[in-house]
């Protein structure tokens, strides 16, 4: 079994001599990744910078990121799992059916070259994007690539990291874990946390229409969810907290304009490697922060008559 074998981005900067991007287009989606953390930086043990590193890109099409790559491997769409399986087998010296490799759109020699480089490097890292984790195979693809990185440690130092984005999604994940024990897809309806991705994840609840109200914070599901999910957002009272007008705010019942976090209100954001960074606002905003609004909503909810058995909070107790 795999798990997750990872590091903070500074380790990549200081040590990585083999960097593999899989199913992502960092040049356009994470534009500072190359320059701040991975290929362009001089590191403590990579004093020559770019020349001391090899960058491999695996994707289904040529993107802007190809220019930055030393080696581009164009995998056929939906064949990532098969390609990873072949690599895992080759790493362990197991025979691999050339027909299977051919189906991935790549040649045996290309994969063998990659495997050799992976074994030869001193510190290898795989960054994988939604082109891997959100296409056919989904979490099975992620498991496969994480297992590959774990198994590589029998030969050399190797780590893997998902290319997370969408603002502070890593932060939400962290807070949910320490408060509920689970990273996402948590249901609190029974008074204790339950976790079942595919059942309790946002997209599933919205598509099934299992909810009767929706509070949207720092996200724009109206822009990315499947149509039945958007229909649910339209149907139920949806409240959006956002500094700007979004697709979701336009179909919501209430849009509360909040100050942009990091620009006008302070807080903590987590990087994709789960390192917390303090946000120090540079500008003043006339609008309240998300935190302030949520606190006031909680106070308003507390003023409602108590419904929980044994609850001591009554309308009169809260000023």
């Amino acid at each position, binding site marked *: 079994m795999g798990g997750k074998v990872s590091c903070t981005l500074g*380790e990549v900067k200081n040590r990585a001599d083999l960097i593999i991007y899989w199913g992502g287009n960092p040049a356009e989606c994470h534009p500072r990744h190359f320059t701040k953390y991975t290929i362009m930086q001089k590191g403590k043990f990579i004093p020559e910078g770019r020349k001391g590193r090899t960058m491999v890109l695996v994707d289904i099409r040529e993107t802007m990121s190809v220019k930055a790559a030393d080696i581009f491997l164009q995998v056929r769409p939906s064949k990532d799992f098969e390609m990873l399986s072949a690599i895992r087998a080759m790493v362990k010296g197991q025979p691999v059916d050339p027909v299977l490799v051919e189906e991935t759109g790549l040649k045996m020699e290309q994969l063998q070259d990659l495997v050799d480089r992976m074994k030869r490097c001193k510190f290898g890292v795989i960054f994988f994007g939604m082109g891997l984790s959100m296409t056919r195979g989904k979490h099975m693809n992620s498991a496969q690539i994480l297992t590959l990185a774990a198994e590589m440690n029998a030969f050399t130092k190797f780590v893997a990291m998902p290319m997370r984005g969408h603002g502070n999604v890593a932060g939400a994940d962290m807070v949910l874990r320490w408060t509920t*024990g689970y990273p996402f897809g948590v249901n*609190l309806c029974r008074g204790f946390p339950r976790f079942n991705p595919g059942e309790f994840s946002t997209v599933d609840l919205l598509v099934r229409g299992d909810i009767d109200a929706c509070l949207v914070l720092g996200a724009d599901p109206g822009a990315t969810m499947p149509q039945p999910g958007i229909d649910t957002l339209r149907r139920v009272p949806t409240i959006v907290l956002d500094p700007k007008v979004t697709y979701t705010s336009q179909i919501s019942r209430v849009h509360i304009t909040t100050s942009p976090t990091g620009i006008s209100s302070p807080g*903590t954001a987590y990087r994709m490697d789960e390192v917390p960074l303090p946000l120090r606002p540079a500008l003043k905003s006339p609008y309240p922060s998300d935190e302030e609004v949520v606190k006031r909503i909680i106070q308003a909810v507390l003023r409602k008559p108590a419904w929980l058995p044994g609850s001591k909070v009554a309308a009169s107790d809260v000023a």
Partner: protein
Amino acid sequence: MLRITGGKVYDPAHGVNGVVKDICILDGKIVADVPAGARIINASSMFIFPGGVDIHTHVAGAALNFARALTPENQRAAAKFLHTADTRLGIGGATPTTFATGYLYAGMGYTTVVEAAVPVLSAKHTHEELRDTPIVDKACCLLMANNELVMDLLEKGEYERAKDVTAWMISAAKVYGVKAVNPGGVAAWKWGKNANHMHEAVSGYNKVTPGTIVSNLARICDELKLPHPMHLHCNNLGIPGNVSTTLETMKMLEGNRAHMAHLQFHSYGGDDWHNMRSESVHIADYFNAHPNLTCDAGAVLFGNAVTITADGPWQHLLYQLTGRKWGNLDVENETGCGIVPYTYKGSNLVNAVQWAVGLELLLLIDDPWRIFLTTDHPNGACFWRYPEIIHMLMNADFRMEQVRKLPEAALSRIFLDEIDREYSLYEVAILTSAGPARALGMKQKGHLGIGADADIAIYNEKADGELLFRYPRYVIKGGELAVEEGDIKSTRDGHEFVVQPHYNPDIEGYLREKFEEQYTMSFDNYPVDAERVHGMQMADCSYQKTP
């Protein structure tokens, strides 16, 4: 105002052994007397203990939060904490959620906990979690034994500057003490290696050895006058034959203080898994003769656990041994972290030896002021299983019954069947509270003298076996009734203790430059702001070496 009357008081710090006397509380402190009209708790036929102090546990921070995400199957099987008018919802088990952690500790009579492993880089996160850990008081130890800034300075022989860097890091991270985990080994793990020999240079260095790191760091902690000595997780944790490394390390520490963490995991003989045996007698003999050392047991109980440690290379080995999930997170320039779920089985010879060694150390180390009860939660077992261990320590017959359940082959590898010592209640009070508080240098904790924090656990005299310490009748934290017969009554947040050792301010200029080169975070964002540490209380750096 509160008066507890009629109970038998166990306050080892003042030599009080089961004497019936009143305990009075005013404004969160223990006082000589309170006026009539104060609330009275009738504690007749009850035992009164100072609140428990856990000197080594893992309850908050990036590593634990990583483990939570990695083991949803454990959470699903664990105890659930319902949302009520008084308490937040959560989950128990091996990696409890923060609110549940507070309730579970308080529910067992523990009122102070030390999170034993915090990197500077993610200290902000640890403090956020501790903020959400209610009732108990907290403190952290900072991971320094694989800090490359310090190691680079030691390589160049710049001891004074290494000391300043350490002091600056302690102040920046807002922590209470210094932790050393597998000195040099975690730094070597950044290249996929380990550091197994105390006198061999660490991979990537010419001069720095694990021995250099251990002895210098212990000296630094003493010279900075930290209230708690260097908190040390030795090299070669868990490996058969590691007793020689542990003894060698302890010898290097002569002349300095040190706290040997989870000593159980470092007391094995043999040279392979097939012939691993207990070396607790050796360790205890040396330890008993060297008062500069304290330790905690790191006892193992059979059942499910999750191993979480900064010891990256060991966790890779454990992953290869078990074939179970493996989490790893190397932290730039500072440390690492590894996670592997693990099940200790009574039928497994290695596990049986581990189980015995923990208890043997607790019984063979004769000064209860120098060995403390821990399971290295959640590594050896969950902290909420401490009462099971206390029961085995207090009742030799019950303990022998457990020994007899071990496989026949295990008996020739352990000493537990030859030990008939039984802990008294007085000794248990030292083991769980007075001792760890003293080792931590927390003068207001672990005793019931005037001026102490009113953290008190009151147990039912009649309760049997492990139940005695599992379900306190009352738990008082900071003068407030926090738990009554298993019900959480008050969830007022505890404090977090930090220290601020002195350093040469010029060190900031030096660090700023190193940061540009080696880190990916800007130097100004690195320290934890004091206002982010909830209920921060500054402790003095006033340790005095006794001649």
